[in-house]
């Protein structure tokens, strides 16, 4: 009850409202710009928060995080370029909807789903912090390994029609993930003496190359008017009606559940959550054949999940003082700069700040919805300008965004190389998403596999003895078998037809 009062007093202060609104707006813009990740958007703003009151500073940083995780879906839907890592899954159906002239609807779904997810996540955060932090502690190295495998098993369903090609692309991603410093021994691998490669190939660079650059290249190569977009129907944002939302309740529930379970696990994060919920939504859908062809469920499920994560990812940060991602690391920095020590005692020493933060973030989610309604119209207008202008500015946007991350020319070459690979994959009809999944999960799988074996002196039984690990491996096997079965059935159907 005290907590509620703290939250209420926070949201009735104009400074907090300003911080929430300003933070969300900045976040949406940052998230929508390819290359500016949520953590960079937060880092850019951090110095301005030094002189604010602690609560105002934290609400602002948290709001940027929320806004940015949502904002990433805007370019994912409109220009096939995920603005943030977690928006990669939204590309699949979001962009197809846009091509079908339903871009406004897709944006409405992602905005509404994101808001619902964000609010749901906050309620969980405020009421269930303790059990959720126990969940984070259940993840030992074998469990992380199994989680990575479960993520990989999704390849079976995101590469429908060509599972073998999907697997090849996935392996390519896993291979890319081995570049850099060996996670356990520290020996450098495949860096060829290049210091820029010590930290590995950055996931965001490959993603922008494979999606944005490859898309532009194939548009150039097509040489025919590719205006599949029907400008009339997409020129404005279409919010889903309540009955539409009700009809998508299953996908949203899946997004909420996956986000709630995934968020508190440090290192798993929004990307894995959105892919997993996309996959689950497809499996439980009444119309799974629509996925990949402009499914509404395929947009709302991952978007709900990654905004649930914006709240639940705060669990390890607040209850252990351990950031699970770059974004939460900056939020943690915000706490430390103001002399606050997140950890088990924070709830008793600074409840005013903590519940004030929850209150502020609640407002931020609502503001995100309102701001989204205002700015999405112009965003849609923007992408309906003549193609050549749009394509040229996408390239400029992607490159300046990438350059701003590390001020590195080398990164630009990585994007171009990834673009070339992405283009070849497209021409040969290989799906690109498995490559991304392999790259994202490769490091987690490898390091935790080896860590687990180090712990048991090489005994593989640990993966089945550990409860969490066994459960996740079971899920992975189910996903794989079902995927293979569907593939097989379709193959037979095509053969007989």
């Amino acid at each position, binding site marked *: 009850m005290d907590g509620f009062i703290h939250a209420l007093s926070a949201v009735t202060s104009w400074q907090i409202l300003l911080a929430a609104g300003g933070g969300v707006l900045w976040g949406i813009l940052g998230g929508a710009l390819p290359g500016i990740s949520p953590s960079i958007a937060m880092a850019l703003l951090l110095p301005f928060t030094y002189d604010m009151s602690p609560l105002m500073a934290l609400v602002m940083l948290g709001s940027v995080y929320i806004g940015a995780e949502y904002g990433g879906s805007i370019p994912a839907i409109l220009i096939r370029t995920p603005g943030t890592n977690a928006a990669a899954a939204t590309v699949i159906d979001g962009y197809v909807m846009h091509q079908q002239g339903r871009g406004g609807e897709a944006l409405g779904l992602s905005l509404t789903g994101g808001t619902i997810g964000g609010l749901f996540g906050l309620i969980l955060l405020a009421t269930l912090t303790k059990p959720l932090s126990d969940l984070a502690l259940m*993840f*030992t190295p074998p469990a992380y390994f199994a989680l990575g495998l479960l993520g990989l098993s999704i390849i079976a369903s995101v590469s429908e029609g060509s599972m073998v090609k999907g697997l090849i692309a996935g392996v390519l991603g896993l291979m890319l993930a081995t570049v850099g410093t060996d996670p356990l021994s520290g020996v450098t691998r495949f860096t060829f003496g290049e210091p820029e490669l010590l930290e590995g190939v950055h996931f965001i660079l490959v993603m922008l190359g494979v999606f944005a650059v490859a898309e532009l290249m194939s548009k150039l190569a097509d040489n025919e008017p590719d205006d599949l977009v029907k400008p009339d129907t997409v020129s404005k944002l279409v919010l889903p009606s309540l009955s539409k939302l009700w009809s998508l309740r299953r996908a949203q529930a899946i997004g909420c559940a996956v986000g709630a379970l995934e968020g508190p696990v*440090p290192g798993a994060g929004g990307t894995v959550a959105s892919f997993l919920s996309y996959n689950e939504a497809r499996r439980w859908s009444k119309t799974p054949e629509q996925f990949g062809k402009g499914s509404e469920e395929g947009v709302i499920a991952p978007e709900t999940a990654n905004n649930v994560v914006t709240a639940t990812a705060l669990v390890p940060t607040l209850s*252990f003082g351990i950031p699970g991602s770059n974004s939460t690391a900056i939020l943690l920095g915000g706490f*430390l700069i103001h002399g606050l020590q997140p950890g088990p*005692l924070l709830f008793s020493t600074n409840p005013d700040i903590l519940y004030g933060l929850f209150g502020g973030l609640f407002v931020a989610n609502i503001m995100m919805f309102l701001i989204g309604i205002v700015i999405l119209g112009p965003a849609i207008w923007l992408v309906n300008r003549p193609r050549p202008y749009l394509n040229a500015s996408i390239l400029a946007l992607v490159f300046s965004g990438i350059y701003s991350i590390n001020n590195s020319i080398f990164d630009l070459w990585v994007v171009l190389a990834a673009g070339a690979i992405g283009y070849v994959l497209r021409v040969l009809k290989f799906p690109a998403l498995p490559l991304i999944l392999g790259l994202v999960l490769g490091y987690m799988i490898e*390091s935790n596999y080896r*860590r687990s074996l180090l712990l048991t002196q090489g005994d593989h039984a640990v993966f089945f003895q550990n409860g969490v690990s066994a459960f996740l491996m079971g899920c992975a096997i189910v996903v794989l078998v079902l995927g293979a079965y569907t593939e097989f059935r379709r193959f037979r159907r095509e053969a007989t037809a």
Partner: protein
Amino acid sequence: MKYRHFLGALVAVSATVSLAAEALADYPHSTVKLVTHSSPGGGTDVFLRKLSQHLGPIMGVNFVVENVRGGGGAKAMAVLANSPADGSIFYGTTPSYVNTSLLSSPEASFTDLDPVVNMFYDPQVVYVRANSPYQDLTDVVEDAKSRPQQVIVAVSTPSSLDRQVMEQFQTVTGTEVTILTHDGGGDVILNVLNGTAQVGIGEIAELRGQIDAGELRLITTYTDERLDLFPDVKTAKEQGIDLVVRKFRGLAGPKGLPEDVVTAWEEGIQKLLADPEFKAWYEGEGVIPAYLDQEGARALTAEFATEMKAFFTEYNIQAE
């Protein structure tokens, strides 16, 4: 009317500016840039910002902190090496700038920079879960002797000081433990909390919340003397394990700094360390004040580099 107010304000501003200019008559620059490779909110960033806040009035200089991220300090070192050696730009040093230089072949390495002063050591500590049977490092040694490789020690990255000290620990004590490397200090804490590892190595700042809450307990410090914050925790030295980690924090500049600039810094930093407000901050952080003048800081850096080089070569971590 409004216009006159504005004029008044303008006069007031220029007056303050000229006052400030007088105070810093002995330092050649009114604005000094402090570069860190740490991202905003990271360890060195927070440290440099606190430093600017308190050192500004002492030296009569306006400090600007700039985050030059990327390449584990490689970019920041390149910026420094290409800047004029006139006292207008400095770099916040930590062991990572030496390590990065040794591990990769950056455009500019730590030898292209010149240490100015050392300020602190971050104490390296050994910790366990609150309910662990270990009371000190001797208990760990005994347990490790009775069951080789069964005691799991969590450390941060493979090229970290955490790992280096535990590899040395095995040699010094003649034991075999399993050293589990991680991606960072946070993961180490989680794996100690959930029982995956029996012992963790880390820094006070990241452990503070858990220690205060009674979830984690310090058993030993790798420092010269016991820490003021934790007077009951023994040092490794006291237990006959001769290991001391000097995780330094200081400042370096481009090579060839004028003598008066170095002197101004040496004096300024000594005053800063005695400043009550700044003292209150760093004591709360649990760092050990360890002022060294330029000669001392140079020697420390060189000695540290030799040690790390030997470690990297022995464990095949080095590039090439």
